[in-house]
């Protein structure tokens, strides 16, 4: 394998792994902050125990998110040096601003929160977790604005053989960035909601700490329902943005080959990439693709066959990932809706609780699939229309990358095992007894 392929695999492994932990950080920080604020305003010890219990899971998860984030920033230089040279003027500054604005805040106040239970007033302590929640969400905005520049570059001029900054505001306020942010963060909140519901359901099923876990469950159910609906709506807007600006990605998402007006959407499709067609197309909904892409049942949708093969993304992966994401997104609305409806009679609805325990992994899958759509679907470009992925890799020896890739797999694999083991262990252990909390 060459440097390019190895670097792509390594970056994919490193980002997917990183993004197994980041969404829970984004969502759970907000939930823990709400719990602790409820404790401060109502003085109810249950909320303090909730904040401490979920906070512990938060910290285990947070640690892996942080340490795996550092490698991502540095890989732009180590593995993608041509890319870094070409767009560093813009991309680098977004990352640097992310660090100064958010990472310092996040890492300083998470420590204050962990070690400050007795050193700070309850209000100050709750403020610390709010700052952590704020910082992680702000950091998401900057990194997603940077990714949006790769998806849809704006605010630059080509000068001195590279993309130079021309309009900073245009870059950080472009529609793509806003949509990508609300969609990703919405997905992360869904994940946190389902995580808290699932773990709570497990305890309620066993009749442990039912009061505390019912409170957690209800909060999470509202959270999950609101964001499941929200994410589907803005996902639809994202789709229209893609249709307008990245027609090849849209066509790959639907495995749509022939350019046509009033394009239907087939419920059952089997792509046949080699022969540039689908080997099976069943159950068409007339005009649905045109409508979803352009809000008009008769609009023309460009097909992959009209895009030169060298400019097409991998179709099968993009297509499957998109189906998985949207299918799961629909399921989440249903499940969160049910959870919310039954929130007052949880112990009587054991079937629902059981399902909710088992679906904890699904939002993880949906988020990974979403990123596969966005990133695989953007190929062959690393920066849409400006630079191809093939031209972006560092001029280094393939052996170096092979070794580091193997090390990534090994180290991340072991870390992942350790982290999931700990999360399981503490999730099952449940909160500290009331006496211990009052003593603190």
């Amino acid at each position, binding site marked *: 394998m060459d440097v390019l392929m190895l670097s792509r695999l390594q970056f994919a492994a490193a980002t997917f792994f990183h993004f197994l932990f980041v969404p829970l950080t984004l969502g759970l920080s907000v939930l823990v902050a709400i719990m602790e604020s409820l404790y401060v305003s109502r003085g109810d010890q249950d909320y303090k125990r909730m904040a401490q219990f979920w906070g512990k899971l938060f910290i*285990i998860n*947070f*640690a*892996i998110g*942080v*340490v*795996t984030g*550092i490698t991502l*920033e*540095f890989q*732009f*230089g*180590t*593995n993608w*040096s041509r890319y*870094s*040279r070409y767009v*560093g*003027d*813009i*991309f*680098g*500054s977004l*990352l*640097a*601003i*992310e660090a*100064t*604005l958010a*990472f*310092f*805040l996040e*890492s*300083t*106040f*998470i*420590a*204050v929160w*962990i*070690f*400050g239970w007795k050193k*700070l007033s309850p209000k100050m302590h709750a403020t610390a977790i709010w700052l952590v929640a704020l910082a992680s969400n702000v950091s998401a905005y900057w990194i997603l604005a940077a990714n949006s520049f790769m998806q849809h570059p704006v605010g630059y001029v080509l*000068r*001195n053989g*590279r993309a*130079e*900054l021309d309009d900073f505001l245009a870059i950080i306020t472009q529609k793509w960035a806003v949509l990508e942010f609300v969609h990703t963060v919405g997905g992360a909140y869904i994940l946190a909601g389902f995580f808290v519901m699932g773990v709570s359901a497990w305890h309620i099923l066993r009749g442990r700490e039912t009061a505390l876990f019912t409170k957690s469950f209800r909060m999470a159910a509202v959270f999950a329902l609101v964001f499941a609906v929200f994410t589907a709506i803005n996902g639809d807007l994202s789709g229209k943005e893609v249709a307008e600006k990245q027609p090849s990605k849209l066509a790959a998402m639907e495995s749509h080959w022939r350019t046509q007006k009033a394009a239907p959407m087939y419920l059952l499709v089997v792509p046949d990439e080699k022969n540039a067609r689908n080997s099976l197309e069943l159950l068409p909904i007339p005009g649905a693709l045109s409508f979803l892409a352009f809000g008009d049942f008769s609009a023309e949708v460009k097909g992959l066959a009209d895009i030169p093969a060298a400019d097409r993304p991998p179709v099968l992966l993009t297509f499957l990932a998109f189906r998985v994401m949207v299918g799961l997104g629909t399921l989440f609305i249903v499940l969160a809706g049910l959870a919310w409806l039954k929130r007052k009679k949880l112990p009587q609805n054991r079937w629902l609780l059981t399902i909710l325990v088992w679906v904890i992994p699904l939002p993880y899958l949906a988020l990974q699939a979403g990123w596969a759509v966005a990133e695989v679907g953007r190929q062959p470009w690393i920066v849409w229309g400006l630079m191809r992925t093939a031209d972006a890799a*560092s*001029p*280094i020896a393939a052996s*170096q990358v092979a*070794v*580091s890739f193997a*090390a990534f797999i090994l*180290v991340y694999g072991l870390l992942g095992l*350790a*982290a999931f083991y*700990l999360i399981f*262990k*503490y999730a099952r252990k449940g909160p500290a007894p009331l006496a211990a909390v009052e003593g603190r």
Partner: protein
Amino acid sequence: MLETIWFVLWGLLWAVYFMLDGFDLGLGALMPALAKNETDKRVIYHAMGPFWDGNEVWLLTAGGVTFAAFPATYAVMFSSLYSALMLLLFALILRGVAFEFRGKVDNPAWRGLWDACLWLGSFLPALLLGVAFANIFMGIPFDAQGVYQGTLFTLLNPYGLLGGVLFVLLFMVHGSLWLAIKSDGELADRAQAMAKRLWPALVIVAVVFLAATWVSTRLWANYLGNIALWVFPLLAVAALFATRLAMARGAWWKAWFASALTIAGCTFFGVAGLYPNLVPSSLDPAFSMTISNSASSPLTLKIMLGVALVMVPVVIAYQAWAYYTFRHKVTEEDLAYEDY
């Protein structure tokens, strides 16, 4: 002008990073030598616990600023140092996780595993950062296209290794002083004795390093041309001796600050010697990455400067507040947290 301002800030960020993370890297590397039992270890973890993560962000920022202000340098520097950087990253990963995971399972083998990760994750970064910067001072073999013409072992030359040893010793002294501040009783005594024992070794290595710098690098050219720059090496030397004086008087906070200044002085000694290069090429000075051939556009530099001028003081203010909040010696009560 903008480029020069960013060059100075670039040096400053590295200096702050070394000053802050230096003590916890040094202390982590010394833990096996300082801790006699489980309680000692827990005190050491606690002495670093509230600080290490915030300190490490300075590394991220130094890297990020290299990317943002000097993208071409970032590209050449990071791809040339590929294997060394990957080692550094893996070491830092293991170390960061050790802090959070160690206390989460009550089993000696589990704790032993993470103690080993902490040690490796502290010693290796200290060494590698020293090796990397010594090589940068000396020049790295990359060609006109910025393509590196060496291997990992090219970096492990005598001067590079000497730089590594220097960093390890600087950080170890810095770390023992921190533990002397944060602990009590026998452990504090051991930390103090350790700082005193390491100090002469540090002086010797520093002198050898300075002499080797004269022979192996071109850093001195700037010093011969500009007398004002001598403040940096003089600061480093004065602070190094002030560290020892403060130790003799038992003024551990003062000693720690003096040691921080030593580290800053050493960093600036190198950075001032590099100017206007960021990373010189050892193949041909014409290939070197300089502030003029690798800087970002003036607009980016201006916006970044605005952000830095507003945000860095804010960051320093709340980090200082956090240090102040956790300034006390580690107590029994702190150890009652099951986390460490």
